[in-house]
């Protein structure tokens, strides 16, 4: 089975207009263009293990997602990417921290959880496990709208519209079951399902990672076109640095449950500021023989979120680690002019690190 090519972007736009004209589920902008779509502060999730041990999966992260942008999230496995995604989607309850969606507290009086879930949706990694094997794909896509009060007929109509938008001919595919589709087709269904509630924020948790490279490219292009057509904002999680670069406006780098660096994709890839980001990017395979990696970019123990080291969590593997790094946890703070934030003593003016820049002069 070949995944059908998805409609032309102009066609998509027309379809999106049509869907909005029907006003099935209006999700209007409320906070104005300057308000970030999602603003996360102090988000923390610890998983207790036996005998008092604790996995610090996500440990106090702050970030914002602007309206219409794609925020890429990268990091090794176990760094807390997926836990962050599930926290944003509120599939897990955070231990601490709060989230503002378009200026309103998620789970608060203005934006109760059920309402929030119309505005934020998620596409999972495993395309098969995320579809109910006993439901036809149109029924899976129509489930969400029905939860929010659409009649069955209207929900199915909407589901078929969306299947067409993600490049699956409803006449051929709507009545099929998940096992009758290829991985790429199933992931298209999952995207359609996520779009069924007209969300404004889409969390893509390794959503293309399990696909073949050729299929992956098609789905990525579909995602880019859908973002335009539906005015979507993406949180794009992947371990594939090339894909993140292709998709994102800004990138957030995570290490052992913390953010180590966040900034615009082009400048961050060109000049990474955190030693971990540098190592991560150096480990990227390159087609250019002059840019071959000759040394192992990362040494030391692989990260273990159960007992993260004190101070800077990266210090056991960092070539620049000094006494300060073992003792004091660096704060995420602005660096340079591109809106970059880095959590490293080397980049903190006035820090007691031999490579740190001198303290800023305070202009009176």
């Amino acid at each position, binding site marked *: 089975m070949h995944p059908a090519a998805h409609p032309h972007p102009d066609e998509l736009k027309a379809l999106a207009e049509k869907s909005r004209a029907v006003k099935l589920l209006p999700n209007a902008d409320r906070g104005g263009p300057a308000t970030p779509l999602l603003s996360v502060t102090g988000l923390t999730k610890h998983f207790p293990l036996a005998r008092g041990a604790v996995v610090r999966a996500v440990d106090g992260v702050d970030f914002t997602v602007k309206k219409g942008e794609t925020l890429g999230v990268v990091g090794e496995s176990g760094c807390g990417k997926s836990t962050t995604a*599930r926290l944003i*989607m*509120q*599939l897990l309850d955070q231990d601490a921290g709060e989230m503002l969606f378009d200026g309103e507290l998620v789970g608060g009086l203005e934006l109760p*959880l*059920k309402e929030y*879930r*119309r505005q934020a*949706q*998620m596409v*999972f990694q*495993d395309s098969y*496990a*995320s*579809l*109910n*094997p*006993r*439901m*036809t794909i*149109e029924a*899976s896509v129509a*489930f*969400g709208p029905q*939860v*929010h009060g659409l009649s*069955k*007929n209207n929900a*199915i*109509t909407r589901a*078929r519209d969306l299947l067409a938008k993600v490049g699956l001919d*409803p*006449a*051929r*595919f*709507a*009545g*099929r*079951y998940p096992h*009758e589709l290829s991985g790429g087709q199933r992931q298209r269904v*999952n995207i359609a*399902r996520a779009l*069924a*509630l007209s969300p404004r924020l889409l969390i893509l948790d390794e959503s293309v990672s399990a696909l073949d490279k050729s299929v992956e490219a098609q789905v990525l292009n579909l995602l880019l076109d859908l973002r335009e057509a539906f005015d979507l904002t993406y949180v794009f999680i992947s371990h594939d640095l090339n894909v993140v670069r292709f998709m994102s406006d800004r990138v957030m780098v995570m290490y052992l449950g913390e953010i180590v660096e966040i900034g615009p994709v082009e400048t961050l890839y060109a000049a990474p500021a955190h030693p971990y980001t540098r190592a991560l990017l150096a480990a990227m395979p390159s087609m250019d023989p002059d840019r071959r990696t000759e040394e192992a970019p990362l040494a030391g123990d692989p990260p273990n979120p159960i007992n993260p080291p004190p101070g800077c969590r990266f210090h056991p593997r960092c070539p620049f680690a000094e006494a300060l790094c073992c003792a004091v946890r660096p704060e995420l703070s602005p660096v340079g002019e591109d809106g970059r934030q880095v959590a490293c003593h080397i980049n903190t003016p006035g820090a007691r690190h031999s490579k740190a820049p001198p303290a800023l002069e305070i202009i009176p």
Partner: protein
Amino acid sequence: MSAATLPPVAASPGYWAGVLTRFSREKLAIAAGIVILLIILAAIFADVIAPADPSKASMLRRLKPLGTPGYPLGSDELGRDMLSRLIFGARLSLFMGLVPVFIAFVIGSLIGISAGFFGGRFNTLVMRTVDIFYAFPSVLLAIALSGALGAGITNSILSLTIVFIPPIARIAESVTAQVRGMDYVDAARASGAGSWLIIRAQVVGNVIGPVFVYATSLISVAMILASGLSFLGLGVKPPTPEWGLMLNTLRTAIYVQPIVAVLPGAAIFITSIAFNILSDGLRSAMEVKS
């Protein structure tokens, strides 16, 4: 979905259509199903089929062998027609095998699905209680309950139901716990669906199949246990025809008419094995791993 408003789409054969196709290849299971169907029909239409009155005794014609004119399968210790008693006996024997499993299937699934889905303390409480019942071999548990409650059909059914609830609940719990971890359940939650809607729309359909297959495998056990209770004098009371009780009252006749005396047991055996084969066939047709 009404065809009037929605254009038709190419429909795939659903899961149950696939089950039917696979089941049609299970020749042995189909044969077993036909045997069961015949027994059920015989039980329902016993009044029409049975050649004689099952309770009409005759002191002159006691313990006749097979093939005696008027008594094709011989007669019992009170001179009653064996064939008619076997046909009428199917009613209660089937009833006492099927009803407890059915009730336990409904209750056990409810308990197991809620325990598996909600987890936490509720789950611990339920599963620990189930563990206690697992500390009794099923025969012992059935006899203990029946023995304490006293003889009678209702008490037998009650005891057997209690015997089968824990194993069914345990299976339902473990399957539900697996399904609960699937991404599609998370996706449904992310759509804003509440727990009960998720259970109804997403969980039950995926859990009930394996639990049903398991429950069908218990029917044979239930029939053997139910007849066993009657055999001990705990189930049906004479002169009601029931296979277990017939076996009991004919016990001393094995020295006179051994073949006639073991006939009720053969009926239990055939029915029990037919249910087991049918259950195995269902298991492979529904692609449930044991």
